[in-house]
């Protein structure tokens, strides 16, 4: 339990760092220096000192949403194995994690509508369209991992997979990983699904939903989004490719575990940066094509587990 709380604090603290890291990688590929890796921390601090301006038409939902999102993210972080496999475990906790993220998305969409501005509603509707296609994919990918390791507890999935050899890995794992990666891009507002740096009406999705927030609420929303991205990366690193994670609580294992997971997340960040720099954002009506491809991949992953 203590270990879980420590992991959570780590995750919260590191989240802005990795967002900064992705931006730094992108800048490198675009041939410029880019802001420092610690810039997101400075942004968050700045926002915490500012006042909030809230629309007259907003209800309690609008002010509550940032806190709800933050809570959801912290709760999810408690259940995801970071550098050891002993987080809070109970049967079916992968479903809880997925739906905590779902709850966060739900409230963000409502908050977007709540402020009464046109941009917010537009962002919310687009977000729900995308999530309708992404959610089954995420569930199927994680179910594949559950099938492969024979349990639905995230910590145990990690443990089981980490202790089996590399040659017993079925091809279904890679299919599920590919599907989950595409879903990560979709859920966290990354190119090619959404541009996280834009504020143009035609291209905003995630940004549109949080457009009306300001001051501390905006800080909380930003922080929870960054943590969400980190959590997705951690899930990918520790559930699909968990080798290196600490399976027992010894100092040596812990150090290796921390090192391994940081390395894996850095690699994933690099991958995201490369994708963001080399692809253009897809037009909205082309998104179903991409998302259905990832859904088919996850479906294939489940099927190939049974067929092969």
């Amino acid at each position, binding site marked *: 339990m203590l270990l879980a709380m420590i992991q959570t604090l780590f995750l919260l603290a590191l989240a802005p760092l990795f967002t900064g890291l992705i931006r730094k990688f992108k800048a490198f590929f675009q041939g410029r220096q880019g802001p420092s890796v610690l810039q997101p921390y400075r942004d968050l601090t700045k926002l915490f000192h500012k006042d909030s301006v809230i629309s007259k038409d907003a209800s309690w939902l609008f002010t509550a949403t940032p806190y709800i999102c933050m809570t959801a993210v912290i709760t999810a972080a408690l259940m995801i194995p970071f550098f050891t496999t002993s987080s809070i475990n109970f049967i079916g906790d992968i479903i809880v994690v997925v739906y905590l993220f779902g709850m966060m998305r739900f409230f963000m969409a409502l908050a977007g509508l709540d402020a009464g501005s046109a941009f917010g509603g537009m962002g919310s509707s687009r977000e729900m369209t995308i999530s309708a296609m992404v959610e089954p994919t995420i569930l199927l990918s994680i179910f594949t991992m559950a099938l492969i390791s024979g349990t639905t507890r995230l910590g145990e999935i990690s443990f089981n997979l980490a202790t089996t050899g590399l*040659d017993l890995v079925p091809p279904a794992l890679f299919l599920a990983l590919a599907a989950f990666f595409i879903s990560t891009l979709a859920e966290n507002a990354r190119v090619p699904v959404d541009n996280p740096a834009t504020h143009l009406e035609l291209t905003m999705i995630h940004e549109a939903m949080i457009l009306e927030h300001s001051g501390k609420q905006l800080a909380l929303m930003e922080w929870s989004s960054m943590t969400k991205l980190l959590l997705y990366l951690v899930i990918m690193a520790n559930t699909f490719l968990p080798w290196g994670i600490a399976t027992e609580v010894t100092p040596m294992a812990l150090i290796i575990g921390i090192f391994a997971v940081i390395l894996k997340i850095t690699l994933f960040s690099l991958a995201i940066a490369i994708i963001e720099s080399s692809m253009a954002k897809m037009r909205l009506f082309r998104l179903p094509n991409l998302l259905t491809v990832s859904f*088919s991949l996850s479906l*294939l992953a489940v*099927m190939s587990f049974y067929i092969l």
Partner: protein
Amino acid sequence: MLNSLSLDAINTLAAIILLTDFMLVASSRMRSLTRIFAIQSLALGALAAVVAFETGAEHIYIVAVLSIVLKAVIIPRFINYATTKIQVKREVEPLVKIPGSLLICAAITLLAYFVTEPLMQQGTAITSNCLAISFASVLIGMFLMVSRRKAITEVIGLLVVENGVFLAAISTTYSMPMIVELGVFFDVLVGVIIMGLFAFRINRTFDSIDASILRGLKD
């Protein structure tokens, strides 16, 4: 009896073949169709080579090499050549939209699995579980032929069906008598060339190879 590494390799290659089936359905550009088909044929040839290695049957090596040379190199080149000659538009024009097509293909794969399940009990051949994938390839190939407008995509669909049949041959019977295999390859090559010829003639007459224009003959 079986080396477990070979079994893994066969399973992975079969998964790649199924994956390429889906990628063919999901692609929206003509060029990528031939490229993906080449990858599929390559995987198929590699699978045949692994089977040959396992069973020690020399003539399957020849079949594997033939398959790679013919279907991964010659035929894709020929189709690309025909496509440029006819000056076909770059996009595949699907009659059924891509997301829908992908879901249908997923359903087809499940169907193939159920149909071949009684056969999989036999288990005498190396990988009777490739049978489900071969059936799925055949059905997906047919779906490709029906749901895409251009005449050239119909040819590619047919080739995918052939790949599925070939995979079925390898996985249930190791291989057929050499002369039959050679004849089949020859037939496929000639068939593709002839279809290319006809596509060219159709384009000359109708100025397009949109197969849905070919509706003049009706009752």
